């Protein structure tokens, strides 16, 4: 059942510096709208990507481009523990999710699958281009710079290794 995800992996490699186009979402974007439960019975990450954000915008997966950035409000990723939610975003090409706050399980899952996330409130419109320095937690939108909450170093290391599996392979068992 394990499929080759190479073709679906549109994510960029350098996660420290990201420049991307903004897709805006509101508060309380839950995991059921990010990826509905009926699509979870697979290990083909391309299927998750094909239905990403279907609950809010059924066309989103066809519109989102590699390297794009999501900017959302409070409590992003609330709801179920399904790791398919950050996987769907990552394999759809989303380079980073910026939200005013994240639900705690989504926060862990995103780091564990190597999807950069940043907690910050930023003022921007859909389609704007923003620059993100994930290492230092700095977001630049035109001339305006935002200092976001910096991730603890050990989480940055996991992200830099592409997620927890990659990190575990690199550093061995705790």
């Amino acid at each position: 059942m394990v499929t080759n995800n190479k073709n679906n992996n549109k994510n960029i490699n350098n996660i420290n510096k990201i420049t991307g186009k903004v897709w805006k979402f509101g508060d309380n974007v839950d995991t059921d709208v990010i990826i509905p439960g009926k699509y979870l019975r697979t290990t083909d990450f391309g299927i998750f990507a094909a239905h990403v954000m279907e609950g809010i915008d059924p066309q989103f997966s066809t519109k989102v481009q590699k390297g794009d950035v999501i900017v959302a409000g409070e409590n992003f990723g609330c709801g179920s523990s399904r790791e398919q939610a950050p996987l769907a975003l990552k394999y759809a090409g989303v380079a980073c999710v910026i939200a005013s706050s994240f639900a705690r399980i989504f926060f862990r899952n995103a780091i564990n699958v190597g999807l950069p996330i940043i907690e910050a409130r930023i003022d921007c419109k859909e389609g704007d281009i923003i620059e993100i320095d994930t290492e230092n937690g700095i977001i630049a939108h035109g001339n305006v710079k935002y200092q976001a909450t910096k991730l603890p170093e050990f989480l940055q290391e996991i992200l830099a290794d592409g997620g927890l599996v990659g990190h575990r392979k690199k550093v061995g068992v705790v």
Partner: protein
Amino acid sequence: MPTISEKILSRAAGKQVVADDFVIANIDYAMAHDGTGVLAVKAFKEMGVKKVWDPGRIIIPFDHYTPAHTDTGAKLHQGIRQWIREQGITNFFDIGEGICHQVLPENGFALPGKLIIGADSHSCTYGAFGAFATGVGATDMAEIFVSGKLWLRVPQTIRITVEGKLSKGVSAKDLTLNIIKNIGTDGANYKAIEYYGETIQGLSMAQRMTLCNMSIEMGAKTGIVPADEKTFTYLNGKAKEKYEPVYADEDANYCEDLYYDVANLEPQIAKPHEVDNVFNISEVVGTPLDQVFIGSCTNGRYEDLEAVAKILHGKQVKVRTIVLPASRSILIKATESGVISTLLKAGAVIAPPGCGPCLGAHQGVICEGETCLSTSNRNFKGRMGAGGLIYLSSPQTAAVSALRGEIADPREVI
């Protein structure tokens, strides 16, 4: 002075820790179900480790897609079963045994003072037994499979004290929905909740599970009811091992103190599409329904089914009504007591123990334009089927509403 969470996580980390500290904690029990187990097993294999840390501390119930109804689902089940055999995991509960959050308590894994991590967001249910229990994703679960350890941030704690006697027809679910209405869907994000007060002490273990189960709907990391005689009685003969109940110090540090008097609480309803979109039933009565779902890890327990049967006895439902007992043992008890017969005669459909339609996978999916009143825990947009509307209520409200074909007040019949 320490809260329950600080004490349990200090013990699990082998050093004194306080809120906001990061710890590497030793896990007492780890649970993954068929929904999250697939990716957890995949990640475990990719980590390149041959054997799990302790097969006796891993529990795998199949509940999300049971029985398998697609060839893909069957294949994924097959893969997990094979891995379970290879790893020598004996705490495996195959299809029909029940929902993980009922299976663990029934089998004595949900124990006071333990640190229990589940690859499911509603793992906070085990807080009903005085455990620190929380949900994580699949890769975190793989990490635990490998080492028995996980990094955690020690949460701050909100103390909720509930006083007053619940009126007839008002249940733990109504109390829970009312608390969520007040705190909001992210009001307890990253935090633990400790529940106190005479109302909480008066709740049965099943009702405490309903309460703790929905702590995640406020974003909470865990929700804990301190263990008492009811807890010990429930666990008598069930507990898998010795346990040491943990209590907060009298002057423990709480980040927030909230009080509720529930003497005048009405039945509560969460309207679509957020769990904190809660209203008194009087504001929602008359909403037409297409389906009623009674079950889930929130409200599929014996006393829930019994309460429904009392209302449906000798009558006929007006809308399709789907009932999923939360476990095999509940189904057996409900069969032997006549509850199932009452439900069937009233026109309800009984489906096998499991999560069923709660997450919109099967056994009662709704479509565009349909409305379901559900005793489950989430009414997110599209959760039970694209375009469908979900209202949440207690089993009593669901039962009387099934008879009327529209949302109705259970106090009229109780």
